[in-house]
């Protein structure tokens, strides 16, 4: 995790990723990749996705849980499920969207906002080259 001006911090939300074969990768509080310690823990998810489809991805602060299911595009927030897409419309090649967005004020060199983005994008036709649509949540 990138910290501003060396201020030590820990991620507000930690993630867990569940893959098609049942494998689970959980983010450690140091946010360090096991595959490549130079990277954040999310690197291990990206590496695993290359050989093992991702089924579900969730973030939590131990009290609240946001989850996206890549199999059907369903979001679940604290146990309540919903869709952001029209469920009678097929989507192909669903891929995870996950990042944190930093807003830093250059005039005082401080980060004043951080949003966690969770969602998925998929193609409207089987071809990976076809039109792509995104469905995502921004979480503070």
């Amino acid at each position, binding site marked *: 995790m990138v910290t501003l001006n060396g201020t030590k911090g820990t991620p507000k939300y930690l993630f867990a990723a569940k893959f098609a074969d049942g494998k689970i990768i959980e983010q450690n509080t140091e946010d360090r990749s096991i595959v490549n310690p130079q990277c954040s823990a*999310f690197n291990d998810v990206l590496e695993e996705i290359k050989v093992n489809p991702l089924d579900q991805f969730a973030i939590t602060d131990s009290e609240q849980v946001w989850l996206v299911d890549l199999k059907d595009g369903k979001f679940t927030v604290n146990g309540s499920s919903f869709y952001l897409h029209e469920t009678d419309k097929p989507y192909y090649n669903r891929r995870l969207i*996950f990042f944190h967005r930093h*807003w830093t004020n*250059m*005039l005082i060199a401080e980060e004043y906002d951080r949003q966690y*983005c969770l969602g998925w994008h998929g193609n409207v036709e089987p071809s990976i080259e076809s039109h792509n649509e995104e469905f995502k949540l921004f979480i503070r």
Partner: protein
Amino acid sequence: VAATFKFDEDNTSGKTRTSDVRSCNWRSNDANSGTATTGDVTYRNNPITAGNSSFIKYQYGEFSAGGFTTISNGKFGHTAGAMDTGVTLLGQVVSSYTTPVATPLVVGGNIKDMSAVDASLSTGNSPAVLFSTTAPDGSTAATLTGGAAGFTQYLVTQLQTTTGAAPGDTSTYTLTLRYDEQ
């Protein structure tokens, strides 16, 4: 170890780098905006006389190595704080450096009038920012990958005034560098 992000500033014909600047005080001389250690105690001694422009500021973001997988989707803009009467803010994002001068920038091409607040960084006056693994004026890419150390492009700004600008400090404005991290 978590990566560290900080702002730096280049000044003088020798491109003198000041690391970890903690403000952006436009002024009538080519001097950096001060660090956490030094502060900026000299900008009030070098005010911009009404009707003139500040020296151009060349600031940029710097990421130390490690702690992230990707850094991407950089954006830069004026996100809060209405401009004072007689004061305008021009800016651009570039990968080149020239010795800072007080010659007024002129809107056009990459140079934007950033006076209007764009809180969501969604207008054309809030340009995209690319990244480089070598320097703010190095070759660029849309993404820093693999936890490699790097820089943003130069985030260039200049305050321009009319003779109607009030004396003293301006109001506080917020200039935002936004980026996405994985």
